[in-house]
């Protein structure tokens, strides 16, 4: 269940829009922050909260790449491999991370510590290659830098 505090937050957000449906994305963000991902139960909970069909919520969750419909690792390594990063070696970054974290692209390591994803342009083209770990950007990546970052990810 969404916490009392989060329910209050959602009520406040609803006031910003003329329809409850418009609060769907913000509500899903709050739900994902609380649960770590968005399960079918969560989608049903959100649907009844905003008086929306469950199918609509499912449709929206599945459309947006940042809503997770399955659990992810503690650290979500999202490597940009689009052109500007590609030109500066993002492929090698992916290979190196894959080896270091013991996981393939799109998969989560056995200990559920790392999920490795290849993502589209994150707007860091001038500081390529880069990756995002959870909410943080890590730019101008090198193998040494990655070693350092992973050492700190306990």
């Amino acid at each position, binding site marked *: 269940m969404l916490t009392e505090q989060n329910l209050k937050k959602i009520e406040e957000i609803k006031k910003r829009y003329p329809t409850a449906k418009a609060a769907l994305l913000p509500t899903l*963000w709050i739900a994902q922050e609380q649960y770590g991902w968005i399960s079918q139960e969560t989608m049903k909970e959100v649907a009844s909260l905003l008086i929306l069909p469950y199918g609509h919520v499912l449709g*929206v969750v599945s459309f947006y790449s940042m809503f997770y419909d399955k659990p992810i690792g503690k650290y979500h390594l999202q490597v940009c491999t689009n*052109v500007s990063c590609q*030109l500066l070696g993002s492929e090698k970054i992916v290979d190196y991370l894959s080896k270091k974290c013991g996981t393939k692209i799109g998969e989560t390591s056995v200990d559920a510590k790392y999920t490795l994803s290849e993502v589209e342009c994150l707007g860091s*083209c001038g500081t390529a290659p880069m990756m995002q770990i959870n909410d943080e950007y890590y730019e101008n990546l090198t193998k040494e830098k990655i070693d350092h970052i992973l050492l700190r990810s306990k």
Partner: protein
Amino acid sequence: MDESPKYLLPDIPNLHHLDVYERHGGYAAFRKALAMRPEEIIDEVKRSGLRGRGGACFPTGLKWSFMPKETPKTKYLCINGDEGEPGTFKDRQILQYNPHALIEGTLIAAYAMGVAVCYTYIRGEYTRWIKLFQKALDDAYAKGYVGRNILGTSFSTEIYLHKGAGAYICGEESALMNSIEGDRGYPRVKPPFPAQLGLWGCPTTINNVETIANVPIILLNGGDSYSKVGAPKLPGNILYGLSGHVNRPGVYELPTGILLTDLIHRYAGGVPGNKKIKAVIPGGSSTPVIRGDQVEGLRMEPESLKSVGSAVGTAGVIVMDEDTDLVKVLLRLTKFYYHESCGQCTPCREGTGWMWRILKRINDGDGKPSDIDMLVEVANNIEGNTICALGDAAAWPVQSFMKCFRDEFDNRVKPSASVSVPVAAEAFAEH
């Protein structure tokens, strides 16, 4: 290096703090605007010649004038900060270093169009910049610049931050509106245009972050003065994003119409190892590629780039040196559009996948000579046949890479299997 005056990203430390922004003349343009009639502001913006910085270069004043003056409906303004075009990383600089210019521009635009509610849509990945912008917005609210009866006038407008959730297509203005309404980011058929039927069926205008950040300076110095900066067809300063094979990548605020060679060599420090330039994408991944030998003399303005079949787009310049494998580059670009196609229109949904698969087999060494023509044919059948411009944006890279670098792709496909198989037999196999 001679520097032209900067107003989008001036070298002022802590400009993102409201008091620093105010000390440097911040919100003076908004105060000036509040003493003007709304039509006068729209005329001033029209006179400035300001064009949208989101990639389409649409005249901003004209766009604002489409909003109905008399309407019983609520009017809305959306600020598009769903920056996601590969090679583009400029709006985040404004959110980080000069968020109050964006808020001030939003307020002026809202006043000029009689807008009651503004939504600033920022891509979900920009967590850091969302926090920075929200802080600036909270400060502006606390100081009475936003909200009810602003600065003691009868003008009221709200600004809300709306966080995206990972979809390039939401940068398309009608998809952005659907996303705000709580739907999948599907672009809408136009007409009706947003100024008639936008958010919740009400008049709506959508402007890019950088476009709106230009508005305060236009009000302060006047449209005429603004129109004299840079290229006449696209006046003002613009945030150039330099990425790829350059020594000093980054965002540079300079007048429009600058020489592409100056941007690459003088500002971005040239190509590492003094290598030759093989290709340049001048305005974000959706603008057609140009060959290195075409760069000399080109200016970053619409007419000059049109002469080589390209466009200014978002001014995100991607430089590729002589060692770049262009098959790989195009494969990656095509994968992007395949991934980001919303799936509404068949030519784009299917075509982007076909183009990706054809390029994949060419890259893997399994391509046939006929694949290249097929690739172009698929691109030609997407272009112009979709609801929104993503289809065109997916087709243009393929078409332009084939126009400029066909040899490189031809060299990668196997000599035809017909060398060992009789022509008739191959034709039969094709069916």
